[in-house]
């Protein structure tokens, strides 16, 4: 079922910082204030809230509503990590479409104190705590190193291919004042960086930080009356724990649902003007290219070699710099590509605007648990 006249609008980012002594509630609440400032809405007009945060605990969504003095009639907490943005969009759009809420604020954010990331990784889940952490406590770097090693052996993708993606994203980041990492990055820098979890080196690994991203979902007429540029939702997919019998993850839930996505979107990969993949590590971007139909399975390396992904390239990709150059603000990493796609489609991307963007694909990947990522989601959006 399509999303009729429901739209997404008002993409905002509370600028990321490497370390923060503020709480997650501060980051999330500040994001809501930015949404109100951007939209001209009063707080009381927000009657739906979709929240994602790793560091809000022990508070959940209802205590947070009390914390910020909001009385929503739809309240969702979406602990799906890198898939949370698209899932928030899905939940919010259906709530508005069905009349359960009029205006839904979707917000994700996390703080990053001195020990935040360590504590989060050490206690991420029972499987990860008891059956991964004792093996060197490498965290997500370790899990993605294993998936990267496997992909390199089985598809022929090389570190230079991954480096091409990382360097292109840095070129975008240098045009985006919101990106935390904007220094020059060459392919040689990438290839010779210090080892982290081989085959991964420093520039393969996302940098944890603090920050928040948010947007609003409402009927188009409402967005128009507020004068808010907005985007249409052509199609979305979501899947959890796909292919549990694969001995190692070489595909994600996208592969199960991509035909449904493109069928409902009524366009194809060739019609996409900007691709925003979830990129905590570049191997996952390649899996998304393959599983979402931008190229055949196991031909991701050729797709990378045959395209250019930076400014002016054939396949503009992660056009704000992605997480690899922007930073990963916890659950906000699941929103980063979505707010960037909304900016591109509404011609609000400033120095990193891709001209004439009509269609965008945004993809998410979350919850690395035990040996693989469990949550996948994708949206196709239109101007």
């Amino acid at each position, binding site marked *: 079922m399509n999303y009729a006249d429901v739209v997404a609008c008002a993409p905002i980012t509370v600028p990321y910082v490497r370390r923060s002594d503020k709480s997650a509630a501060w980051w999330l609440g500040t994001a809501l204030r930015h949404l109100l400032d951007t939209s001209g809405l009063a707080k009381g007009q927000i009657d739906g809230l979709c929240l994602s945060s790793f560091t809000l605990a022990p508070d959940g969504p209802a205590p947070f509503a009390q914390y910020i003095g909001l009385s929503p009639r739809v309240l969702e907490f979406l602990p799906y990590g890198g898939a949370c943005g698209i899932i928030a969009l899905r939940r919010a759009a259906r709530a508005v479409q069905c009349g359960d809420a009029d205006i839904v604020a979707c917000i994700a954010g996390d703080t990053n104190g001195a020990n935040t*990331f*360590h504590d989060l*990784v*050490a206690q991420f889940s*029972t*499987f990860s705590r*008891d*059956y*991964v*952490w*004792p*093996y*060197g*406590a*490498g*965290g997500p*770097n*370790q899990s993605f*190193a*294993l*998936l990267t*090693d*496997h992909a390199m*052996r089985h598809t022929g993708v090389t570190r230079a291919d991954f480096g091409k993606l990382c360097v292109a994203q840095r070129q975008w980041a240098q045009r985006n004042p919101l990106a935390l990492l904007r220094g020059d990055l060459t392919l040689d820098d990438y290839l010779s960086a*210090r*080892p*982290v*979890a*081989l*085959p*991964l080196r420093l520039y393969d690994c996302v940098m944890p930080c603090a920050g928040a991203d948010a947007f609003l979902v409402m009927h188009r007429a409402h967005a128009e009356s507020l004068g808010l540029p907005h985007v249409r939702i052509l199609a979305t997919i979501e899947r959890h724990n796909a292919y*549990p019998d694969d*001995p*190692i993850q070489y595909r994600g839930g996208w592969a199960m649902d991509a035909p449904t996505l493109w069928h409902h979107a009524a366009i194809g990969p060739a019609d996409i003007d900007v691709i925003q993949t979830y990129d905590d590590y570049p191997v996952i971007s390649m899996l998304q290219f393959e599983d979402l139909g931008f190229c055949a399975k196991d031909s991701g390396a050729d797709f990378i070699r045959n395209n250019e992904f930076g400014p002016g390239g054939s396949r503009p990709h992660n056009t704000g710099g992605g997480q690899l150059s922007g930073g990963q603000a916890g659950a906000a990493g699941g929103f980063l590509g979505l707010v960037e796609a909304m900016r591109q489609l509404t011609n609000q991307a400033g120095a990193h605007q891709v001209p004439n963007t009509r269609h965008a694909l945004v993809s998410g990947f979350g919850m690395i648990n*035990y*040996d693989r990522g469990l949550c996948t989601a994708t949206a196709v959006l239109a101007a």
Partner: protein
Amino acid sequence: MTSILQLQRCTTCGKIQYPPRELCSACLTDTLEWTAAPATGTVLAITELHHTHEPSFYTQQPITVALVHLDSGPTVVCFIDALCAAGDRVHIAASIDTAGRAVLTAAAQPPAAAVAQSQ
């Protein structure tokens, strides 16, 4: 000569699972037993860790860790002998680490202790 590894087996449907849990992930019954599964498998992927979040590992780096697909079905995260490579056939042995946790290690040969035990 095979080293022995204790894994969870569902007595209702026969599934062998890892990590262990209180229910069978296939049929959802709790009719689980510990069984001596063949501790052999194939290395799917290897990483060499040069960064750790845990100070107790600082002096042990680099640490080699693998995903091994056991012949009995599950995939395990384990330490691995640095001489092993992806695609190799390996034996898995369990031991207790300095924090008192049971950990698995893969090597080309079964450990001497396990060989002695099975003789």
